[in-house]
């Protein structure tokens, strides 16, 4: 009886102390490993057909697991603002081979692939390939044509093909009327503020994912700011015509009766005039960082 009590007491002492020691030790090991760690992203099995063959009859579940891996991979890279997304394509390839009807993988996968880094992999060519594969497996799903048109319009700037994609999609069952309108508008105007706003707004409205919603909202705000700057430049030109010099501050336009008040960007920061006399986003506005990033990347990523 006494020995049993001693063992119990020993256990009560050893268990918490032992696990406390393990916990501390693991922290030490983690920091050691973090110091020597390298890029550990890897897709061990890159052949979708092989993975499907090995999945017995559980390929739909495995496709869901692979898709979750895509989301986690993209999310981690996005949060860390890392631009190397080279595992994205093999992961998406395996996912869509395992379940060719998993439309969400084509739709969001194309978005992850097409956008310039760090928002995406900067590979609109692969995005087009992925969506075309999705269309082949799900020919009646009109949203995939919308996504195809989106990539051609925003990332490849191929307005002819964008218009064709919207037109083709408009013929599919359940396609919304605006698909046809969009096809005609893009064919006639190419890139325009209203078309861009509409397309990003549709992404914002149709997605329930916070990451995608946030990205779409940022794009919408930037588009709005860019359009505002265009309008303010037109007013500045008018001011220059009247006064023989460009305005130095926004308040000059207000005093001249061209504006009712100092306008602000969607984040609430007042627009300013730069040294060249052109309207710009305020230095304090978070939108400026987004704009600079996009401009830099648009120059850096070859189309």
């Amino acid at each position, binding site marked *: 009886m006494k020995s049993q009590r001693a063992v119990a007491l020993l256990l009560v002492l050893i268990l918490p102390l032992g696990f406390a020691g393990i916990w501390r030790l693991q922290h030490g090991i983690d920091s050691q490993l973090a110091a020597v760690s390298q890029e550990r992203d890897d897709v061990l099995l890159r052949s979708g057909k092989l993975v499907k*063959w090995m999945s*017995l*009859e*559980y*390929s*739909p*579940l495995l*496709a*869901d697991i692979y*898709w*979750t891996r895509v*989301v*986690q991979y993209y999310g981690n890279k996005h949060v860390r603002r890392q631009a190397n997304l080279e595992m994205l394509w093999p992961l998406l390839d395996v996912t869509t081979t395992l*379940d060719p*009807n*998993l439309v*969400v993988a084509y*739709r*969001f996968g194309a978005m992850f692939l097409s956008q310039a880094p760090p928002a995406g992999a900067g590979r609109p060519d692969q995005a087009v390939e992925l969506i075309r594969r999705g269309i082949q497996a799900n020919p009646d799903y009109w949203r995939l044509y919308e996504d195809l048109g989106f990539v051609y319009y925003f990332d490849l700037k191929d307005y002819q093909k964008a218009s064709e994609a919207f037109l083709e999609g408009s013929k599919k069952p359940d396609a919304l009327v605006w698909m046809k309108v969009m096809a005609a508008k893009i064919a006639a105007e190419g890139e325009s503020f209203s078309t861009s706003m509409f397309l990003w707004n549709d992404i914002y409205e149709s997605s*329930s*994912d916070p*990451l*995608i919603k946030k990205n779409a909202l940022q794009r919408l705000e930037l588009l709005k700011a860019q359009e505002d700057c265009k309008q303010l430049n037109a007013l500045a030109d008018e001011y220059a015509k009247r006064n023989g010099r460009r305005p130095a501050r926004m308040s000059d336009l207000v005093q001249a009766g061209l504006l009712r008040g100092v306008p602000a960007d969607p984040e609430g920061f007042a627009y300013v005039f730069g040294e060249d006399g052109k309207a710009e986003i305020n230095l304090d506005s978070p939108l400026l960082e987004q704009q600079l990033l996009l401009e830099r990347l648009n120059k850096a990523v070859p189309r």
Partner: protein
Amino acid sequence: MKRVGIVALNTFREAVRDRVLYNLVFFALLMMLAAVVVGQISIGIEESVIVSLGLSAISVIGLLISVFIGVALVSKEMEKRTLYALLAKPVRRWEFLLGKFGGLVLTLAVNTAAMAAGLFLVMLYVKHSLQREDAVVLVAVYFIWLKLALIVALALMFSCFTTPLLAILFTAGLYIVGLYVQELRNLPVDVMSPATAAFTKWLSYLLPNFENFNVMAMAAHGRAVPGTLILQNTLYVVIYCAIVLTGAAAVFSRKNLK
């Protein structure tokens, strides 16, 4: 037939006594966890993953039960020597086998139905309402049950003439081969001799085709399963089970039980 029913009912009671249905707790926990976690770590598959995960779990749990318990149905009775007491009564050997088969199929039906009910509850929680196209999940569950019945018949047959370990290996092996029967049919016949091509084709129809019952992807995406397929698969299992159980009864009737 009454004797078959009595054996079947006792087999079912024994399975319940052996806590076979405890797997339902594991299933319930898995589904609850999935319902909560998936929405947070993935995008756009909250509904489809519940269906594919639920059906996969029903299938895997059912497979484990049908292979391991299916093989033990006869061997355990022999090992415990309860078979001798039973066969001393007016029960024919084939009736015993058929009763055992019926009992385990009944156990699997109850188990599968309970898991299907759990799956529908989780679907209701995730989707907030059930639509007409969700009925395809019921068809997928029914197909899983048909597949399990076929596996029980195979396990029972193997257990009649070999050791339990080998019977498990044979059943599991035949199940895996049965998933690739279609591949066997698609082999390039041009590079084979006519005899080998004919043999491969013949073999592909002889082996149980478990791919027939795989409508998991259709269920996950809410696509309807044709009514004819339901009928054809039901007939396929009835005929295949009849063949396998007849073979098993023939072997078991001649088995020296001393």
